[in-house]
């Protein structure tokens, strides 16, 4: 058995292959945890699950050998008052590797935009050193901080440790995130905190939704999951269009703001014709070597020119957001990229309008949705016309690439 810093590690010839190479190694992370946690315990720290990381090394080595997972599903969600945020997990080798027989994860609601102080991060570390495996994911794909692996009896104490972190650890309290048929933890791009393209305050919107819908986030009662993601502009850095049922994409209506002097500066280093004019999808731009002109009636606000010339071009001043509905992964009826539900909501009305719409959508979906039917699939089944009634919107040609190509229209109002 290899011994590092006085700590014995299991033999893991296959995993050791993944310590090689320049990219940072997750195997090293697991080994480091095994070593440091044991050292910390020997130094007198309170640690409930010493050996969990070691156990994970053993299970994972076997998975690599057998080319299959060794985890079984558990359905436990035993944090008092909540119905989500914990993913139950058991190992199918409990007699061989009892250290990870229970290996549940806890999802922690991250701060909007994934901004942290080191004090906040250390809180997570201190709590998870004591009550869990010491292994984390920064972050899970929905955006939560993932605490990877603890036992059933430590779930509640761990949640309490995080909730009372200010008193118990001198840290920053954290709440648990969503899982199951609930509102999943909303997420946002860094927006106005660092990015000049942001057409609305993504962090504020994300925080507002999270706080207003704590009940929906923690107590799953819907047909399936529901995700909200906020991107400040059509670049969509959180992939909201593809990854959320309700995507809020910042945009603008008026003219792109141009600083001609700055364009001329750029022209000294790049070929404006090649990099900008030719790449505009609507051929809305012209450049005569002195002045850049944009035909804003043709511009579809795709962001390309602004991305290339950030010093010279800015989104317009009449800002707001487009709402896209229905984005989801392929399971079951095929993948969906969200489509336009509302072409434009002005920035100052955005949060309230979204809340009105969200509540109406949830009520409808909760009533009509089948088990495991995402909102997008329900709209496929019921039709856009019904959905538009639910959200109280008129049809807009901006909702489609083209009108329908068949005349089989359901004239419901004539055939009541």
């Amino acid at each position, binding site marked *: 058995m290899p011994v590092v810093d006085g700590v014995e590690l299991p033999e893991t010839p296959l995993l050791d292959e993944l310590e090689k190479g320049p990219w940072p190694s997750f195997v090293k992370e697991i080994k480091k945890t095994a070593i440091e946690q044991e050292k910390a315990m020997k130094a007198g720290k309170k640690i409930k699950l010493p050996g969990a990381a070691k156990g994970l090394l053993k299970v994972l080595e076997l998975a690599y050998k057998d080319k299959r997972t060794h985890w079984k599903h558990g359905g436990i969600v035993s944090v008092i008052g909540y119905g989500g945020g914990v993913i139950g997990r058991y190992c199918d080798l409990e007699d061989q590797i009892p250290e990870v027989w229970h290996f549940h994860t806890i999802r922690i609601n991250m701060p909007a935009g994934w901004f942290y102080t080191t004090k906040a991060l250390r809180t997570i570390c201190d709590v998870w050193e004591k009550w869990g495996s010491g292994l984390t994911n920064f972050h899970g794909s929905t955006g939560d901080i993932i605490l990877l692996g603890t036992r059933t009896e430590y779930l509640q104490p761990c949640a309490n440790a995080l909730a009372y972190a200010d008193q118990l650890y001198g840290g920053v309290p954290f709440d648990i995130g969503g899982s199951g048929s609930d509102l999943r933890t909303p997420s946002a791009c860094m927006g106005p905190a660092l990015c000049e393209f942001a057409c609305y305050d993504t962090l504020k919107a994300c925080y507002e939704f999270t706080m207003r819908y704590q009940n929906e986030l923690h107590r799953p*009662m819907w047909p399936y999951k529901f995700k909200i993601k906020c991107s400040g502009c059509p670049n969509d850095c959180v992939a909201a269009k593809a990854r959320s049922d309700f995507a809020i994409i910042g945009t603008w209506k008026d003219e792109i703001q141009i600083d001609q002097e700055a364009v001329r500066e750029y022209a000294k280093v790049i070929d404006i014709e090649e990099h900008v004019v030719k790449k505009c999808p609507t051929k809305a731009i012209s450049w005569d070597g002195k002045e850049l002109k944009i035909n804003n009636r043709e511009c579809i606000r795709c962001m390309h020119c602004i991305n290339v010339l950030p010093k010279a071009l800015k989104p317009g001043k009449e800002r707001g957001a487009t709402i896209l509905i229905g984005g989801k992964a392929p399971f079951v009826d095929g993948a969906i990229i969200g489509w336009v539900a509302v072409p434009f909501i002005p920035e100052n009305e955005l949060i309230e309008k979204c809340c009105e719409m969200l509540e109406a959508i949830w009520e409808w979906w909760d009533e009509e949705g089948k088990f495991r039917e995402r909102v997008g699939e329900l709209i496929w089944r019921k039709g856009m016309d019904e959905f538009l009634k639910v959200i109280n919107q008129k049809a807009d040609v901006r909702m489609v690439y083209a009108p329908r190509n068949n005349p089989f229209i359901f004239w419901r109002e004539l055939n009541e």
Partner: protein
Amino acid sequence: MTEEINKEELKQKILEHLAKKPWQVRDLAKVLRVKKKELDKIVQELIAEGKAAYWSSGSTTYVTTKEKLEEMEKKRSGT
């Protein structure tokens, strides 16, 4: 008054169903012929009272009784 009694009866009925298998609230609402919203509330109460509990597949959530949950988890954990 009568409403209270009905509610207690309903709670009893719900628990009987939940003891058989984990349920989606919507399906249970259909079986018991109650509005889903009402059932949501009552189920929340049962959960708060510690009689019912959530069970999650990771992607979807079910409700069952506390005992049933413990029994299921025992089976899954493999001993």
